[in-house]
């Protein structure tokens, strides 16, 4: 195996694309909607891709020659970073595939396209996790985004979903254009699109026009902040998250966001974190990102408090969580950000799966008042939702706590004490709005006595069970995952 072509390093992406194509063919050649069959095929694809990731992990740990760190002329990089973010992408997409079964039935939407788009999007996320080159980051981002635009507008006859898809499309492409132009200028300044070469060029001060790097870096930062929905570039988030189908929203707020954080970290490590005094780029970026992180947390948490729609509330909460994760980026600590995104992925996909189940056909019942007295009609579902809310608020023993704890601890050790204190205060404020739906579920009388009990299918039950198990596993026994992310080897 040479350093150019290596079929093992591309195996997870290859498997997923292949299964997605097979699924499209199966969808075309079977009569009627065989929703269960499509779900099983995509589950098989995700599990096979996960196995391939596991194989790469084993090879990386034992046999250094079989999996070179960099293949395809530096386009693909196989390192713990890739493994961590690929795992997040696969976990989030698998949970979404399970949660989607009941929703697609309920809304009688075509299932074949949904699962193949979900898998293509996951291929994009995997490529972003393994990118070693700006070309690959751009390509992965676009594979992901184009599939996500369609998924956001998946309810073709629902105006809200149409609007969500279109808004996401316009602002997403706008952000991509900024990112791309920034990449072009960075290429002009450093004469390379390879992240490692860019890092070396900046460290050794071999930059032709430093103002190009400054402008290019700034534009990449703007594009990335759009993608992770950091304030003041967050305005699209509430609209898109409210209008998109709940299951898709749960996935969009976790998977693509984790992939965007992967790209952010890669570019941050290559361009902004190096200490070379090129017009004070590193210092200026840190200051700018600190301000962005603080604004993001304030905007997310304060506006979430006044929302009456649970989906919109969770959208603002998602903005706030991006702010917490940004603290980890500023501390240049990718492992804690990866762990945070895994925790956030598990709990948020779970929370939105419950919102989808309660919302019924076309997400009609997503207001807080629709949750009145739900604990008496569907006790298990309410308890599950309460667990996710506790975890999002960051209560001890849950994944949300452990994720925040690791990010804030890492940042504290890097001397970002003010930022950490601010983030902890914000996290305390957030308890208020996470408790509102819980209070409504448990302490308000049901509006109409004849509300039907929410019935979940087996797949949705499996998704929720895995999410709840994940919340407690990551919250209480994070050692295994941390070891996999090579945190303990630090």
């Amino acid at each position, binding site marked *: 195996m040479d350093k150019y072509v290596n079929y093992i390093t591309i195996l997870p992406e290859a498997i997923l694309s292949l299964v997605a194509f097979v699924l499209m063919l199966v969808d075309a050649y079977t009569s009627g909607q065989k929703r269960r069959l499509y779900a099983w095929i995509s589950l098989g694809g995700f599990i096979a891709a996960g196995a391939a990731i596991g194989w790469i992990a084993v090879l990386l740990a034992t046999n250094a020659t079989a999996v070179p760190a960099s293949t395809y002329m530096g386009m693909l990089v196989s390192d713990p970073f890739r493994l961590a973010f690929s795992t997040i992408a696969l976990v989030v997409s698998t949970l979404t595939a399970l949660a989607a079964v009941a929703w697609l039935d309920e809304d009688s939407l075509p299932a074949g396209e949904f699962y193949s788009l979900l898998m293509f999007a996951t291929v994009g996320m995997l490529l972003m996790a393994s990118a070693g080159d*700006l*070309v690959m980051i*751009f*390509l992965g981002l*676009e594979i992901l*985004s*184009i599939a996500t*635009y*369609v998924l956001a*507008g998946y309810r*073709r*006859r629902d*105006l*809200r979903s*149409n*609007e*969500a*898809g*279109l*808004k996401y*499309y*316009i602002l997403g*492409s*706008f952000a*991509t*254009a*900024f990112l*791309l*132009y920034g*990449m*072009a*200028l960075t*290429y*002009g300044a450093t*004469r*390379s*699109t390879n992240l490692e070469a860019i890092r070396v060029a900046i460290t050794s001060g071999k930059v032709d026009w430093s103002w*190009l790097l400054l402008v290019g870096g700034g534009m990449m930062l703007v594009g990335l902040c759009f993608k992770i929905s950091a304030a003041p570039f967050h*305005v699209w988030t*509430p*609209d898109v998250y*409210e*209008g998109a189908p709940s299951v898709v929203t749960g996935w969009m707020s976790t998977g693509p966001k984790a992939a965007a954080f992967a790209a952010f970290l890669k570019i941050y490590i290559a361009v902004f974190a190096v200490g070379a005094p090129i017009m004070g780029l590193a210092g200026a970026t840190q200051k700018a990102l600190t301000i962005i992180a603080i604004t993001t947390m304030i905007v997310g948490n304060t506006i979430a408090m006044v929302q009456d729609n649970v989906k919109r509330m969770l959208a603002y909460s998602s903005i706030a969580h991006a702010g917490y994760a940004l603290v980890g980026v500023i501390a240049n600590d990718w492992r804690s950000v990866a762990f945070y995104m895994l925790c956030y992925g598990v709990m948020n996909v779970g929370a939105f799966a419950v919102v989808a189940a309660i919302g019924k056909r076309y997400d009609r019942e997503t207001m807080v008042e629709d949750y009145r007295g739900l604990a008496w009609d569907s006790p298990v579902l309410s308890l599950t939702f309460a667990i996710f809310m506790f975890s999002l608020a960051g209560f001890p023993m849950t994944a949300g706590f452990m994720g925040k704890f690791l990010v804030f601890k890492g940042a504290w050790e890097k001397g970002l004490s003010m930022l950490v204190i601010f983030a902890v205060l914000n996290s305390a404020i957030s308890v208020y709005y996470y408790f509102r739906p819980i209070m409504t579920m448990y302490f308000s009388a049901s509006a109409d006595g004849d509300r039907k009990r929410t019935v979940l299918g087996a797949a949705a039950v499996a998704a929720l069970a895995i999410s709840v198990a994940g919340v407690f596993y990551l919250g209480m026994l994070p050692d295994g995952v941390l070891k996999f992310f090579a945190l303990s080897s630090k």
Partner: protein
Amino acid sequence: MLPITNFILLSAVIFSIGAVGVFFKRNIITILLCIELMLNAANLAFVAFASYFGDSTGQLFVFIVMTVAAAEAAVGLGLVIAIFRNRETLNVDEANILKL
């Protein structure tokens, strides 16, 4: 040969026209064209740098961007058709069910 700065200035001007257009145009098709303008401004910068450096990476990037832009336009027009069927207008100000 013209100095490289001219090309970069031209691409910056095209990019700015596109970016301003996204904010101020109200028709969705025009907005899509403005985004296309921004992507192609980046392409221009890439080929200018690539020919200046005598390096092929920038040109390769342009081919990838062109392919991606075509795919993106296809999806964008699909979304536009979906929204037009349900609403019969292409003015973004009237796409306002979700409050901003």
